[in-house]
């Protein structure tokens, strides 16, 4: 290769790599800092000695969190909402997505329009709140599970996947063998839909775990609140973590621990997602791709 071209090529690669490296580090740094600060000595955190790596070592922050009644309550509630909610979301989405993927569905265009319409026009939070109140869904243990049963966007992803990657001949063959639509859905479509099921679980699961808006509006009972609501009180509104007195000895120690404890809390709250994320990242990306094919 021509020497001049070779050199400019090298320079170009160098610049690209530097830009990408900076982007990666900028994304990573706050996360590393939070983890480091959560296990560092509280004095070092408060005086700004923790910059990148942990200084000293202590896990009192984590211990205090585990002893706090409301954080464990919130954690348990969030787990319940996420698992139960996702199961119901995914089922309803797969069912609707499959029905819409069938070209012989009578009234398919109309039903698709009925669904898509809601992506562009909505009633706003006030009238939704009034409807939810009217049907007695306010402040119930199942409120957050029923709210947001399906996302039309996800139904469309499912539809695109099913009509795109499951051969129609298979369904025809099954029908000739005497399968009903239910049987085709249950025995043929579902086993072939594992990739899209993974995507749906991740999207809905992430949504439930991170959601706080619906809980803020529709739940009043503190025992029903998900973790995010308690996180808001502690992390954003700076309310002291309510702990049993033996967790931390004195008021001074409590004040000193405040920052470390917040960082520990961030780690504990984000851990489930950040742990599973690297393994499932390719599914998320695939979801965006399927969604972008037909928007």
């Amino acid at each position, binding site marked *: 290769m021509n020497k001049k071209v070779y050199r400019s090529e090298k320079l170009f690669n160098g610049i690209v790599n530097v830009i*990408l490296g900076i982007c990666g580090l900028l994304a990573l740094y706050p996360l590393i800092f939070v983890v480091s600060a959560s296990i560092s000595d509280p004095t070092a955190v408060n005086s700004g000695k923790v910059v990148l790596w942990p200084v000293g070592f202590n896990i009192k922050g984590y211990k205090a969190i585990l002893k706090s009644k409301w954080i464990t309550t919130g954690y348990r509630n969030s787990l319940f909402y996420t698992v139960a909610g996702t199961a119901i979301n995914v089922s309803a989405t797969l069912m609707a997505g499959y029905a819409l993927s069938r070209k012989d569905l009578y009234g398919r265009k109309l039903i698709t329009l009925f669904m898509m319409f809601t992506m562009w026009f909505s009633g706003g*939070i006030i*009238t939704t709140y*009034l*409807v939810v109140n009217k049907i007695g869904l306010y402040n119930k243990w199942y409120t957050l599970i029923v709210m947001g049963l399906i996302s039309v966007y996800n139904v469309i992803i499912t539809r695109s996947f099913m009509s795109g990657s499951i051969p129609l001949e298979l369904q025809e063959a099954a029908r000739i063998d005497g399968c009903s639509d239910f049987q085709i859905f249950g025995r043929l479509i579902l086993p072939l839909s594992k990739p899209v099921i993974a995507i749906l679980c991740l999207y809905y699961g992430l949504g439930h775990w*991170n959601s706080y808006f619906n809980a803020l509006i529709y739940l009043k009972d503190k025992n029903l609140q998900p973790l995010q609501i308690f996180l808001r009180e502690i992390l*954003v509104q700076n309310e002291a973590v309510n702990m049993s007195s033996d967790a931390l000895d004195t008021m001074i120690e409590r004040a000193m621990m405040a920052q470390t404890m917040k960082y520990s809390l961030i780690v504990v709250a984000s851990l489930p997602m*950040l742990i599973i994320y690297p393994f499932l990242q390719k599914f998320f990306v695939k979801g965006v791709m399927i969604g972008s094919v037909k928007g």
Partner: protein
Amino acid sequence: MQKQNKFLRGIRHSWQLYVLLIPALAYLLIFHYAPLYGIQIAFRDYNPGLGFTKSPFVGLKHFAYFMRSPQFVTLIRNTIILNVLRLAFCFPIPIFLALALNEASNARFQKLVQNLTYAPHFISTVVLCGMIVSFTSPTTGIINTFIQAFGGKPIDFMGQEGWFRPIYILSDMWKDTGWSSIIYLAALAGTDPSLHEAAQIDGASRFQRILYINIPGIASTIIILLIMEFGKMMSLGFEKVYLLQNSLNLPVSEVISTYVYKTGLLGAKFSYTTAIDVFNSVINCTLLLIVNKISSKVSETSLF
């Protein structure tokens, strides 16, 4: 007769599929169409006892009241400024990142950077705001540690209204730049490789190929996403603004959605705030249509 037969046959043929659709359709009917039906209270004085349809009709009273209220200009201005800033800064960056990622010479390095930049997307808005509050704290925050290390004076970021917008925009960038780049990467993967080969033979540099092949290749994706952003211009994400709001930055952080929530739900002014919601949707819709029209004239790319 013939037509009715076709209808009945269609229903009979598809009934099992309809059963599968029931949960989704029922959900949309209750949680989307019923509230949509309810927006008529924007033109009525809503009374819970009388319901959506029987409350007394008052015409445009609530709209007029909103437009004459002292908050009107502030709310519109704050909402638009925050959104224009978001559009100006948060919209282009993912495109650059995708273009850069696409040029990475080492596949493993590319994967690593992708994984790192996607990660913040998985952090919840509440945690993100918690991190912001901790990082910007004037006494213990890491940002002020850096400022002091370079000889500056600590800044109370959350206590000054001037910092609200930069904080909002920068944290948005951190959280979603990587994630938003995925869709452009997908579009880049779809550009025709023969174009690159031809350009290479003609002696085009890598930079020229980005400029004349890659960017035109993803232009339609960019335009579609841009039109959709314009359609959301007035309906800013409620969560983050609300979480970052405090009494000190309220003059710039009060946007339409937070005002509707506070006045409507907490203050129980249902009709008034529904009118604001409707006003908002009308502007959104108009913007979407205008931008779509312009785009279809100028670039022949449009949503519909």
